[in-house]
């Protein structure tokens, strides 16, 4: 059992490394374009909803805490607390997605979605700024897809834990979904300052 747990954890980390490469490519594109068009990138912060971005960061951090506590509850055989923590984690995940959806709606209304209908009041940067919004939708979009997958995994954990499948002797699925959930949180920890705060000092 111990060996199974170790190999499952290691396997999950191997998968997360492929995820680092996946997001790493986009962070690479971001690095290059931000270096090439620093002023244009700074001008985009004016069009971001920084407050909602910060709130979402905190929502995800709370969900990471409840996820960590869920794993701990399984370790100490507290079934009731395990179910409660998993449900809380799922709720935080949905709050995050709801806020994200609201932000997407805002961007849609303001014509900030890259493409033929993209409109940017700051004429000097109309073209370069579009690159940031493309990166914004690509990176937060893929992040949101990961959140949706995470919500699915969380639902499965809740169903299985309601059937009493997890205990201190067997909780590898909880641990592994936890690793995935925390990884997605880490991606957002980087996305928040890199996408929402580039030019925050210009707009105070």
């Amino acid at each position: 059992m111990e060996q199974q747990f170790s190999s499952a954890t290691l396997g999950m980390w191997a998968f997360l490394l492929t995820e680092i490469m996946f997001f790493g490519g986009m962070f690479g594109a971001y690095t290059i374009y931000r270096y090439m068009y620093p002023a244009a990138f700074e001008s985009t912060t004016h069009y971001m909803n920084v407050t909602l971005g910060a709130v979402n960061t905190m929502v995800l951090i709370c969900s990471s805490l409840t996820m960590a506590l869920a794993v701990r509850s399984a370790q100490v055989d507290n079934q009731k607390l395990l179910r409660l923590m998993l449900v809380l984690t799922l709720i935080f995940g949905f709050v995050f997605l709801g806020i994200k959806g609201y932000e997407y709606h805002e961007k849609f209304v303001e014509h900030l979605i890259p493409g033929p209908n993209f409109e940017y009041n700051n004429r000097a940067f109309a073209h370069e700024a579009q690159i940031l919004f493309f990166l914004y939708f690509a990176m937060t979009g893929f992040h949101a897809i990961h959140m949706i997958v995470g919500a699915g995994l969380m639902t499965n954990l809740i169903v299985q834990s309601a059937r009493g499948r997890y205990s201190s002797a067997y909780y590898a699925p909880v641990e592994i979904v936890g690793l995935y959930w925390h990884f997605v949180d880490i991606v957002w920890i980087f996305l928040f300052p890199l996408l929402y705060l580039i030019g925050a000092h210009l707009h105070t």
Partner: protein
Amino acid sequence: MKHQVTPVRTYVLVWLALMILTSVTWQVALLDLGSLNIVVAVTIAVIKMTLVISIFMHARHAESVTKLYVFAGFLWLVILLSFFLMDYLSRGWQVVGKPY
């Protein structure tokens, strides 16, 4: 199975630290520190990441081979990004973007 069980107190303290660091990132971004803004932002993000990986993801108590995976993954990413920058930063002969 005898896994190291982290006390609730530790988890809550890490959560508190992450929340405080989030506010710090936000507030520091409002100050004009020139090129230091990005350095501060990324440094805080890396500290937050380290907290999440070592405590929430139990990397602290993981086996050495798992630790190696974690370390290698981020090292390769740093190498990738450094080589990108090495290329673009050295293109002094090419006019890119608009100056600050």
